[in-house]
């Protein structure tokens, strides 16, 4: 099973490494215990590549992970969400939110999209907006 994810952030290596390690950024799924995170300068002045390799699950975790992966919510998909959030925060200063996915990209939202119409008052707070 593929356990790798990567993204390119349009910022220098130094800046990306500093922001990744800052206390403002605390990914839930990609953390130091379960993942190897490496950084590389992207060719052609395109910023910095972040490569994540998740550790293999223990024998007990395997079945659950296969099920999650089949429904598109496996650990790699979650790691990709976090990489996208990081890129968005660094490049644009905010998480992209739509009416269908008001918390921003999240695998759990893929199958449970809101309709693309504005949130009612009681939903706004829940979405962290």
């Amino acid at each position, binding site marked *: 099973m593929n356990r790798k994810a990567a993204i390119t952030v349009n910022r220098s290596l130094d800046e990306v490494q500093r922001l990744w390690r800052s206390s403002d950024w605390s990914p839930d799924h990609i953390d130091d215990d379960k993942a190897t995170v490496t950084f590389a300068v992207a060719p052609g002045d395109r910023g910095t590549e972040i490569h994540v390799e998740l550790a293999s699950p223990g024998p007990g975790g395997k079945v659950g992970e296969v099920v999650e992966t089949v429904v598109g919510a496996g650990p790699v998909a979650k790691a990709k969400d976090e990489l996208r959030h990081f*890129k968005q925060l660094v490049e*644009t200063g905010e*998480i*992209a939110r739509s009416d269908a996915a008001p918390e921003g990209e999240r695998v759990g939202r893929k199958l449970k*999209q809101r309709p693309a119409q504005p949130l009612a*008052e009681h939903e706004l707070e829940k979405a962290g907006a």
Partner: protein
Amino acid sequence: MRANVWSGRNTVQVEEVPDPQILNDRDAIVKITSTAICGSDLHLYDGYVPTMKRGDILGHEFMGEVVDTGRGVENLAVGDRVVVPFPIACGNCWSCRHELYSVCENSNPNAGMAEKMFGHSTAGIFGYSHLTGGYAGGQAEYARVPYADVGPFKIEDDLSDEQVLLLSDVFPTGFFGADLCDIRGGEVIAVFGAGPVGQFAIASAVMLGAERVIAIDQYDYRLQMALKKAGATDAIDFSRDPDVVEQLKELTGGRGPDAVIDAAGMEATHGHGALHAVDRVKQATRMESDRGHALRDAILACRPGGIVSVVGVYGGLIDKFPSGAFMNKGLQLRAGQCHVHKYLRPLYERIRDGQIDPSFVITHSLELGEAPNGYETFKHKQDECVKVVLKP
């Protein structure tokens, strides 16, 4: 507020929905004064685009007045009159920095979904399925506009809504189609589809210096508009003779057009009888998502070494791609959702300077509540419909 929502295949209805709110610092809220139905909205209406959900507010062509701004929006003030480009673009990523706004890397919060379909995610688009983000559209009284410091274009003179509204999509999209053809003067350009995008592709090819522009459609009233208003020099009506490739060769002394613009897309209606029937069945049974006649014929008709420019919308896959013709004739295939932000100012200036008045395509103006009628009229080409504008 009231909004036009998708409620299943061939059904839209105007409903009461919550008003939009600022969700991010770079958002603005726009009170919509004019919005239009796009040919690509018909692909959603017809049910050929996956990832639609009941209740989705449609519409990606709109303009209006800024009524609220987030803390991060300094270039706009309440009361500003703006046209909003249909792709949602952050302005910060590598693609945006290279004026490739419709493939913005950050604006689609359903990027994972889009990657499954297209290999990569593309930009968010207002009111245009969940694959492009699930953003509420502009066929409504108000819309939330993300990255409002990048997208909305201020209109500071007395041009009417009808003159500038189509800067949101179809005018730039048609211009983009012509721009992809590398027109330097003296070319022959053929345009499949004489809907609004086709009309603007024709007008733009003329403005860029093409010597002859051939309009192709099956509706005479649209071909007449192309000839009389957009500046086409020739017209092919394929309801009379479906062999468009042969007619194009004949019109060009056997050479074929230097470039061909596909402004028809996934629901093309002409083509050779048997192949069309196969495509129709496969699309209806969802075995093939796109009907590819226009693209196939564009490739077969284009002169060797020429350019095929695709701005008509495709959503998935087509069968029988003429790879042999494409490769052996050495064609260049260029395509895209328009990078609208790049074209807003230059095209606005062409309007202001009187080189073009885009309102020539508008045939119908309806109150927002009439949206369901507007969709039916547009879909079935009733009442010589080319473009429907809705007034909230």
